[in-house]
């Protein structure tokens, strides 16, 4: 999902073409970044339909702002990520987004002994619950680096920090998550 995945045209070239009125170039940008942006949104909402709606709105908002877009040392994907965050914030303001934890947690295998299954289920719910108790930047680095498995460099660009800072943040976030789960 990096900016160099498609060697045919860089993001900067595609953006320039969109700004010059070539709509098809926006289609290429959309195809290129649909998956990572969709997955990020999916980690933040419970319904697939909401993720789909929000994802399209993110790209449309981006399209509307593209004529004013200037690259300022950050990749285009980081810009999309910021638009997605803003859109999610709007979404939270107007929606009931509290997710039933039982809906999030995947069912535990039937093959386990019922007692073990119950313990494991409890553990899973603890983790999910604890994640919600963490500071926002801890939650975010876990979402990006652990749940979405984005590379450290990409996570750093999206969160506007250095890779070293992301490594430290992730370590602290996982320590905090584990303490909350055990606490």
């Amino acid at each position: 999902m990096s900016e160099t995945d498609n060697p045919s045209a860089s993001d900067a070239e595609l953006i320039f073409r969109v700004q010059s009125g070539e709509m098809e170039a926006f289609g290429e940008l959309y195809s290129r970044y649909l998956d990572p942006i969709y997955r990020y949104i999916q980690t933040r909402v419970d319904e697939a339909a909401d993720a789909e709606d929000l994802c399209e709105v993110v790209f449309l908002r981006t399209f509307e702002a593209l004529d004013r877009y200037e690259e300022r040392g950050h990749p285009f994907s980081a810009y999309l990520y910021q638009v997605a965050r803003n859109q999610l914030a709007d979404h939270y303001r107007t929606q009931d987004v509290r997710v039933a934890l039982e809906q999030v947690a995947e069912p535990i295998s039937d093959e386990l002994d019922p007692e073990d299954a119950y313990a494991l289920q409890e553990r899973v719910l603890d983790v999910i619950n604890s994640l919600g108790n963490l500071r926002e930047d801890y939650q975010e680095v876990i979402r990006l680096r652990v749940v979405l498995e984005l590379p450290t460099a990409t996570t750093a660009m999206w969160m506007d920090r250095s890779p070293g800072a992301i490594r430290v943040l992730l370590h602290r976030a996982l320590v905090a998550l584990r303490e909350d789960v055990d606490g």
Partner: protein
Amino acid sequence: MARTDADVLDYCLLRIQSGEATLDECLEENPSYAEVLEPLLRVAATTRAQLAPSGPSEAFLAHSPIRVMNLARARVKAKAPSPRRRPILLLQPAFRLAGIFLAITLLIGSVGVAYASGDALPGDNLYGIKRGLERAALVVSLSEAGDAGLFLEHANRRIGEVEELVRRGRVGDIGPALEGYEHAIQKGLEIAAEHGGALGDFEVALGAHEQVLSSIMSAAPEQALPGLTRALENSRQGRDVVEQIRGGQHPGDLPPGLLRKTPDPVEDATDMPPGQQKKDEARGRDQAPGQIRKTQTPDSSGSD
């Protein structure tokens, strides 16, 4: 350079995520860090296993690019600059109207006022002039096809006005724009249905209007939702009309209420609560972005 716990954790995560090593292999490779690493890597694995997103569905991947590109094109059209900013428009077919527009604007005293009214919104002083010029253009239009095209253009402008008003937080002013939208669609479709032509343009535009309205609704305040919901319904009904006419029905045979539907768009929309629009199962063209549940719990502020 000495490695920190954070460096080793990041390195191990990278190796596990890329499939180069298992969690246990990472611990064996870094015995002096194992005690610290193990609980963190395990909690990370549990988190990932439970929360990993499934990604977009095949249906979404198939329909969404078309939907988004159509909407983007519609927005480019709807936001086309006024003649004041893009004189090239004077060379288009509406050129024949330009002389008459000019005469009218001279009559009312100022060319500048007329041009400036192009961006006026409901509630602005110049909005009446803008709508007056639109009516004048209809009066001097020389063909039915021209009339239908003008009504479609007016509908596009009304949607643009609604969007801008909501963006500016002036939702109290959207009534005239929504009313004008309904009127423009009804009149335009009546003419297009009777005289043929322009149905394809209406179909594309109405689809785009649905998308824009749904998008506006996702961020609009509560008080604006009844009117916006009504406008959305008008867009859908308009597309139903187009489809039925294309299916061979004569406009006169259409059920009442499709082409003739004139109750007040704001007052009469209370019978359809926001969020009751049915979600199309396949997320086809009837499903617009932003058309999401509105349960209105402002206290759920989320994590941001």
